[in-house]
């Protein structure tokens, strides 16, 4: 089916169209361009919430409970759950739906699993576009689960209005909490599995770390949850909505949109260059340059300059 027809169906709320369009943007950047040309102007209504944290911290279960709570409050919800692709086989095991069983037949909920397909930063290349598709599809709230993160997966901060960093008791002392990276991006901290020993300690260490920070602006709250039992979830949704209201009341939505736009165009531009370079690798000139480097006739930096000149000339570029 043509992208235009699918888009028309998407805007009417057809979930098969939404699913097919996400597949399209995932599989082919050139088609993604066609889709986004139609879809982008219909976006901007959804509240986007990112959830990040180490593997096993309970992100998927938390999303399951958050979705139920938003549904109770009359909101429709889209979920995008990102998991890693194998760097070896390119395959992926996407298991986030296991924790979201209760949601799967609710027509007000749409869940999509995505593999990173080699993309770093905690999201897949197509995640931002998939968010827009669910936005145009009419979902009120979009929850994005990043891959189980280490310390450096911070792209979510530009993709979501509100970034939640989930931690669990016993992961480390205040020195871990002071470190850079994911700890810096939280608009809300969640200490999940708060029924376990050490939860109070984790909370107070996070609060102590936050006290060291700049006092101006939004001060990230620290929320305790036990997602499996469902405790703390309503309070967490309140905090999420407060943060969204804070952005609106302080005219911070537009700066956020600009930040997101910047991340997106830079990533897309990098992608285009990467594709052109990949195309270039098929050329004889490239193979010749490789030989010359091996024979010490040219150094790698100068060779890369030559390659970029060839790319700029437009060889290999399509669409």
């Amino acid at each position, binding site marked *: 089916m043509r992208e235009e027809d699918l888009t028309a169906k998407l805007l009417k709320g057809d979930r098969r169209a939404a699913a097919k369009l996400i597949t399209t943007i995932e599989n*082919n950047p050139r088609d993604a361009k066609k889709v986004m040309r139609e879809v982008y102007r219909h976006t901007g209504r959804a509240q986007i919430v990112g959830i990040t944290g180490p593997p096993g911290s309970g992100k998927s279960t938390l999303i399951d409970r958050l979705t139920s709570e938003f549904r109770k409050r009359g909101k429709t919800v889209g979920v995008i759950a990102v998991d890693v692709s194998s760097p070896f086989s390119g395959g*992926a095991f996407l298991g986030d739906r296991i924790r979201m069983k209760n949601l799967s037949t609710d027509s007000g909920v749409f869940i999509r699993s995505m593999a990173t397909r080699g993309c770093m930063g905690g999201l897949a290349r197509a995640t931002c576009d998939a968010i827009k598709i669910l936005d145009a599809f009419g979902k009120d709230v979009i929850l994005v689960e990043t891959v189980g993160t280490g310390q450096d997966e911070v792209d979510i901060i530009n993709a979501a209005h509100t970034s939640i960093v989930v931690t669990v008791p016993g992961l480390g002392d205040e020195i871990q909490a002071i470190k850079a990276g994911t700890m810096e991006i939280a608009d809300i901290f969640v200490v999940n599995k708060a029924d376990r020993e050490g939860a109070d300690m984790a909370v107070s260490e996070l609060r102590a770390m936050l006290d060291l920070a700049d006092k101006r602006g939004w001060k990230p709250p620290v929320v305790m949850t036990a997602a499996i039992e469902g405790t703390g979830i309503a309070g967490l949704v309140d905090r999420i909505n407060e943060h969204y209201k804070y952005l609106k009341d302080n005219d911070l939505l537009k700066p956020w949109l600009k930040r997101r736009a910047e991340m997106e165009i830079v990533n897309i531009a990098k992608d285009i260059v990467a594709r052109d370079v990949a195309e270039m690798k098929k050329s004889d000139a490239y193979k010749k340059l490789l030989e010359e480097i091996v024979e010490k006739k040219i150094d790698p930096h100068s060779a890369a300059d030559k390659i970029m000149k060839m790319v700029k000339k437009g060889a290999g570029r399509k669409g």
Partner: protein
Amino acid sequence: MEEKKIRILMAKPGLDGHDRGIKVVSRALRDAGMEVIYTGLHQTPEQIVEAAIQEDVDAIGLSILSGAHTTLFPKIMELLKKNKVEAAVFGGGIIPEEDVPAMKKIGVSGVFGPGTNTEDIIKFVKENAKKKK
């Protein structure tokens, strides 16, 4: 740069909790470069079909060891048809030889019992997922 991946839904309909087999197969499909969406145990036909729609999968693998395949598989096939889901469907677990023709008749295009080589399943999925547009 087209990056088409085979996406496959792996699900356990019905009430049995024997998930070793489906995990072994899921793992093998992952290692063959596919994106495997695993939904876990105790899935209703409605849940499975809805997940297949939302995830836009090319194939669906169903594992069942409870003996309820003669009720659950027809129900799933009917819902897939009703929702115009084009994915190839295959089954595994304990499905007696004499039930296989009936399963094939309703559109379950592969049935893989205990002892199947995972290579055969990978080959089946690759060949049958291609048929879908």
